[in-house]
């Protein structure tokens, strides 16, 4: 609980301070938010150090702080930290520098933490909504920008709609189990026949909510618009932290809660995965707007991760395929946090007084204007494309490995072929940066915070790529949940 409480306090605190801080000193808010993130990271670390292998139950058994949760918490915090660093300069440029921004950021992180740790559908739902609502506002944060408003509105309407459907499903599960605790729900479900219509309806409606949040085809259409319209710094944040939270939720519900139903939902997910990779990759192929392009690419990445999920769902619990698929997704999220944030940070830095900077042409000749950023951007892109030794390869490696192990050779081949598409449109950006002549001359001014953000992201990307051992270790460690009793009970 402590980290969330602490974050909430900071969020509120920032709101207060903001009233006193004069224009031009707004970076103090950023500082505060950053410190808050650090503090809560420390708290998480303390919890981790005293954490028993079986995890800690809390809050009337609605919250299970286990290694899985811890792992995701770190992830969210990292994402938040980098986004904060990347935001300062950008918000100044946009003339939208307000404390709310940071406090909303922190609050959404709180929501995510609930989603990752909750084993009670109520808590999960609350977390989800907390995160979602804060993000709606953040997306629409540029009040004078029509694109921002519009993105926010679309996101909100569709998000609310999806969470409505989601809630409907959850309510049915409550009806089936008589409890909101995932463990009990799981037992009840396993008692039922998986083909009981109520169960099926509940499952499908729930999945709509989940798939919407991770932006899988056909529930993805909000993503490109929201990503494009949102403030670039938030786009980055959404594409990693929000998505990671959605995945955490998906694991909690589908894996620990509804594992007995996998015979029903895995086939559906196969279709979704294929559709996602196909649609996203093809759509991205001809994009000229960098943010939108990366939006589609992130959808494509969801497709790959879904493949791993399929591998998990079709193999025995605790088997090599299951574990590798699991690791694959977790590592993918970790790596993705850094490389995608890095990429978005670079794009953010393109935003200048007179330039929106999210078109491909704005990238042209970036090397001439900011060699370091361009080179690091190349690194991020290659990582996204999964070229070793950049970190992105590790995630792809695990995903394809799990597919091979579970015998899905066809899906594996499909996946690698689509990764070629990916390479193609990432290279379009790289070509623009490195091989074309710049549109406007003059060095690109890059703020300190931005440099830090990009630097950290790049460092992480390369380190994870070259020496992944400790990270794999941590992932293995976080897989402790598979042994932790509640889940174990459920999963049997």
């Amino acid at each position, binding site marked *: 609980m402590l980290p969330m409480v602490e974050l909430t306090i900071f969020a509120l605190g920032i709101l207060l301070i903001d009233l006193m801080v004069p224009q031009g000193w707004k970076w103090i808010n950023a500082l505060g938010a950053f410190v808050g993130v650090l503090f809560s990271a420390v708290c998480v670390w303390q919890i981790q150090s005293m954490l028993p292998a079986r995890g800690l139950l809390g809050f009337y058994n609605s919250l299970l702080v286990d290694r899985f949760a811890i792992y995701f918490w770190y992830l969210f915090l990292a994402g938040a930290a980098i986004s904060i660093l990347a935001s300062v300069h950008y918000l100044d440029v946009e003339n939208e520098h307000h404390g709310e921004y940071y406090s909303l950021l922190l609050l959404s992180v709180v929501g995510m933490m609930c989603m990752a740790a909750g084993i009670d559908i109520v808590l999960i739902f609350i977390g989800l909504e907390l995160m979602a609502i804060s993000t709606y506002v953040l997306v629409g944060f540029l009040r004078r920008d029509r694109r921002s408003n519009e993105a926010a509105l679309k996101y909100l309407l569709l998000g609310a709609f999806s969470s409505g459907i989601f809630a409907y499903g959850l309510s049915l599960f409550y009806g089936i189990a008589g409890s909101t605790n995932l463990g009990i729900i799981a037992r009840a479900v396993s008692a039922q026949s998986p083909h009981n219509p109520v169960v099926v309806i509940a499952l499908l409606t729930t999945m709509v909510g989940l798939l919407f949040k991770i932006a899988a085809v056909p529930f993805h259409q909000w993503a490109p618009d929201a990503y494009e319209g949102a403030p670039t710094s938030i786009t980055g944040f959404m594409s990693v932290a929000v998505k990671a939270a959605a995945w955490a939720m998906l694991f909690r519900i589908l894996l620990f809660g509804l594992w007995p139903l996998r015979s029903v939902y895995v086939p559906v997910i196969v279709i979704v995965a294929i559709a996602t990779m196909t649609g996203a990759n093809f759509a991205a192929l001809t994009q000229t707007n960098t943010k939108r392009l990366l939006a589609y690419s992130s959808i494509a990445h969801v497709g790959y991760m879904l493949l791993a999920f399929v591998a998990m769902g079709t193999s025995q619990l605790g088997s090599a395929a299951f574990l590798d698929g699991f690791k694959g997704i977790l590592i993918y999220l970790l790596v993705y946090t850094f490389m995608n944030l890095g990429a978005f940070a670079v794009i953010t830095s393109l935003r200048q007084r007179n330039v929106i900077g999210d078109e491909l042409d704005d990238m042209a000749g970036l090397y001439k204007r900011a060699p370091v950023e361009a080179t690091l951007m190349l690194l991020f892109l290659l990582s996204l494309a999964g*070229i*070793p030794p950049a970190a992105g*390869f590790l995630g792809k*490696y695990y995903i*394809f490995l799990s597919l091979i192990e579970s015998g899905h050779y066809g899906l594996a081949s499909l996946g690698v072929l689509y*990764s070629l598409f990916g390479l193609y449109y990432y*290279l379009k950006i790289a*070509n623009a940066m490195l091989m074309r002549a710049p549109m406007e001359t003059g060095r690109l001014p890059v703020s300190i915070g931005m440099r830090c953000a990009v630097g950290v992201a790049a460092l992480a990307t390369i380190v994870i790529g070259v020496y992944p051992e400790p990270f794999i270790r941590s992932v293995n460690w976080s897989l402790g949940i598979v042994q932790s009793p509640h889940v174990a009970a459920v999963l049997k």
Partner: protein
Amino acid sequence: MQSHILSIILFTPLVGALALLFVPKENKNAIRWIANLFAFGGFLISLPLVPMFWAQRFEPGFKFLEGTPNNWIPSIGAGYNLGIDGISFLLIMLTTLLGWISILSSWTAIENRVKEYYVWFLVLQTGMLGVFMALDFFLFFVFWEAMLVPMYLLIGIWGGPRKLYAAIKFFLYTLLGSVLMLLGILYLYFHHHTVSNPQVFTFSIPELYKTAPLIPFNIAIWLFVAFFIGFAIKVPMFPFHTWLPDAHVEAPTAGSVILAGVLLKMGTYGFVRFSLPFFPSVVSHPRVQNWVIVLSLIGIIYGALVSLMQKDMKKLVAYSSVSHLGFCTLGIFALNSAGLTGSVLQQINHGISTGALFLIVGILYERRHTREIAEYGGISNVMPIYATITMIMFLSSMGLPLLNGFVGEFTILQGAFTANWKWAAWAAPGVVLAAAYLLWLYQRVFFGTVTNAKNEKLHDLTPREILTFVPLIIMALWIGLYPKPFFQILEQPVNQIVQNIHDKSNANAAVNAQVAPVPGPTAAAEIGSDEVGSNLVVSKPGLTAARLKASN
């Protein structure tokens, strides 16, 4: 106590690249000096390897092993393991040599973004060396892919007019191959886990050598295909070759030299190092073998024919590579000692000769900024030294005895012939055509009187340019006159591989028997499916001690 010479050789260029990062980019000459220093240093450092390796050339297995298995990423069983045998040894020496030469050759050729250029080039150097040294599949794959990036940038940034197209084409093409290969690797890795006892996950190549051949034929064939596409694109073999001309034509001279000299060898190296030991039952399956051989033969003739009609010198040389590499694959899939030895030799020779040819083209290009053959004529009047060197390299490339080309080609032909005389018969026209297109090119460019006024002022080679050719010519003469050391270096690994194929394929003969026939061109199917049994040479086992005595 391990010797770390391999690591030292491997990382010298990388250190150079890092050092360059700290040089201000305005100071071009300093950058050039440092880059050349490190490139040459890398070559010098690799020289001590020669006597060290020579001493133990007959000992079985990999030498200069470094690192213990799984010492890099224990949790997935990947290790930083280096080690070389005769084959990789030769290729490494070739790489260090060509790396130095091509960096030296780009002194004046590269004028903009010099710093980047050298940085990427040195990185590329490390990548290539890593591919040849890695004894761990994960490590291998990392180098294999990482190497694409600098090459892509070299083509894309310093390339010709259609550089973007060429660069992306190169990258996508080769990546297509390697991702399929990745799936293959993962399967082997998983398979090793399932069959090994106790069950372990490892990427260690020597370990996989033990288990991979156990894969039943009907799965192994698909794995073979996955690997095959990867390597065939790299080589490039006949239907997969179209990235090559584009990449070559657009790439800067040094890039072409490295591309032709080393990168193409990775495909053939992959065949020798992986395809053959991993899938003995598949490669020795008559249909499969015929498939590949037919592709190689088509490549030989076809490449030669196409290059005959080229109007662009560099394209001509590029297509000639297709023809030469066709010989290499022919030798490999003849599956006998002679063929394999010849193939590796031919890879070295091709690196030397074709590397030189690209330098030659580049020198003219640097002076006149065109590669159109029609633009030239009578060059030997104005550039006699250049003409002489060119003639020597052309001769070596067309396989004239006492120069390197002949040794490789002939040994390959010998191997192919003993495997199935029809193969050699089909390959022979390639030799004739090689003479045709090279001599015709020579006539059009060098003979006659200077017709184009622009060519009258051309100055002959500078000492630096001559220096770039000297080592190549020396090597060409050495291999041509006294190839015995090379044969001896290759003897052990080659016999080892052939021996393995022989044993394993016999072991899997039963599986072979009842497996559904692999689809293959019926024409090919007839070609010499009779002597498949006798394709394999049994080298005399044992006698190592005796041989060691003999050698000392």
